[in-house]
Each structure stands twice: as C-alpha cells, then as structure tokens.
C-alpha cells in the first residue's frame, strides 16, 4: 500500500475521497492509502503528493501562478 498525501482547504466528503482515490490509483498505477490534510492556506482545490511527485491543483497555486505572471509584466 502506497501512502499519498492529499491536502485540501476543506474536509473531503466521502464521495470526493473515492474520486480522489480512483484518480491517484489510475495516475500512479498504485493501490493508495490516502493521508488527508486540511490546510486553509490552499484556499480551495487539491494537492496530491506521492513520493517525489506532486500535483498542485489548489486555488493558492493558481493564484500564485497568476501573481508571477503579473509580476513579470
């Protein structure tokens, strides 16, 4: 069983957990054990960490990307 860290701004509903588990299994070809973390700093969306791999689809990450674009001008 591979541990995958899931970070969200709100607690995941059961249906979401299933959806996430399915996604992770398919994406990394593993049978995952989800370690759920709640962090309001991510604002919304989801961050998935598996070993050295990371998928950051949080609102904070998107806003940060926009911020960098704006600063580059």
């Amino acid at each position: 069983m591979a541990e995958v860290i899931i970070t969200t701004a709100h607690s995941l509903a059961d249906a979401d957990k299933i959806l996430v588990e399915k996604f992770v299994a398919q994406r990394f070809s593993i049978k995952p054990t989800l370690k759920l973390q709640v962090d309001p700093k991510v604002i919304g969306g989801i961050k998935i960490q598996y070993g050295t791999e990371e998928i950051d689809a949080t609102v904070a990450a998107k806003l940060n990307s926009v911020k960098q674009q704006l600063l580059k001008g």
Partner: protein
Amino acid sequence: MDIQLPQILFQVVNFGVVMGALTYLLYKPVQKALDDRAHRIAEGQAAAEAAMAEKDALESQKRKLERDNDKKVAELIEQATKKAQAQKQEILAKAKAEAQQEVEKLKEQWLIEKQQLKQDMRQELVETVMSVTEKVIGQKLTDKTDSKLIADELSRLMK
C-alpha cells in the same frame, strides 16, 4: 741823400744771415711742432672716427640682438599661447566628457530607480490584488463549491 752801396750790401747780407739763423733755429722746430700737432689731431680724429664706427657697429649689433630677442620672445609667447590654448581645449574637452559621463550615469541611475519604483509599485499592487482575491475566493468558496472544483480539476487532470 747818398746811396751807399756797401752799406746796402751789408744790410742785405745781415738780413740774409738773420733770416738763415731764424729759419734754422726757429722756423723748423715750430714747423715740426705744428706738423706733430697736426699729426696728433689727425690721429685723434681717426681714433674718434674709429670709435664712432665701433659705436655704430655696436649699436647696430645691439639693435639686431634686440630684434632677435623680440622675435624670440614673440615666438616664445606664440608657442606658450598655442600650448595654453591646446591645454585649455584639452581641459574643456575632458571636463565636457566627464560632465557627459556624469549625466549619463545619473540618467542611467534614474532609469534604474524609476524601473525599481515601477517594479515595487507593480509588486505592491499585485500583492494587494492577490490578497483581496484570496480573501474573496476564500469567503465565497464553500465545501460544496470546493468539492465541485476538486472534481473538475481531477477530471481535467485525467484527460
């Protein structure tokens, strides 16, 4: 009155003797003295003329030296003037170049500062906008909308 020939002859001989004696004893020394004096005067005159000629030559040489000196002084003044002019031009050119360089430096510095100020203002503006945006999104995003957002993101990532 009788003419006495012997008496006349005696007188003539006497006169001749006196004349001969005078000529020998007085006329020749006086003539010699006069000749010597004339000779000395002529020598003095010649010496005076020589001195005058020498004086003229010296004055001419002096005038020539003065002219040469004046010419040399004029040349030296001209050379010094040209040199000073060249130095003046060089100093002016150098000062102008330095001033130009300083202006360029200040302009460059001003542009950097302007750019930095612009960047700082942009950063501050972006920070403010992003901070407000984060707060607004945080307030608007409910469990339900966040759940939908997660589902949408996962769906997008699956593609």
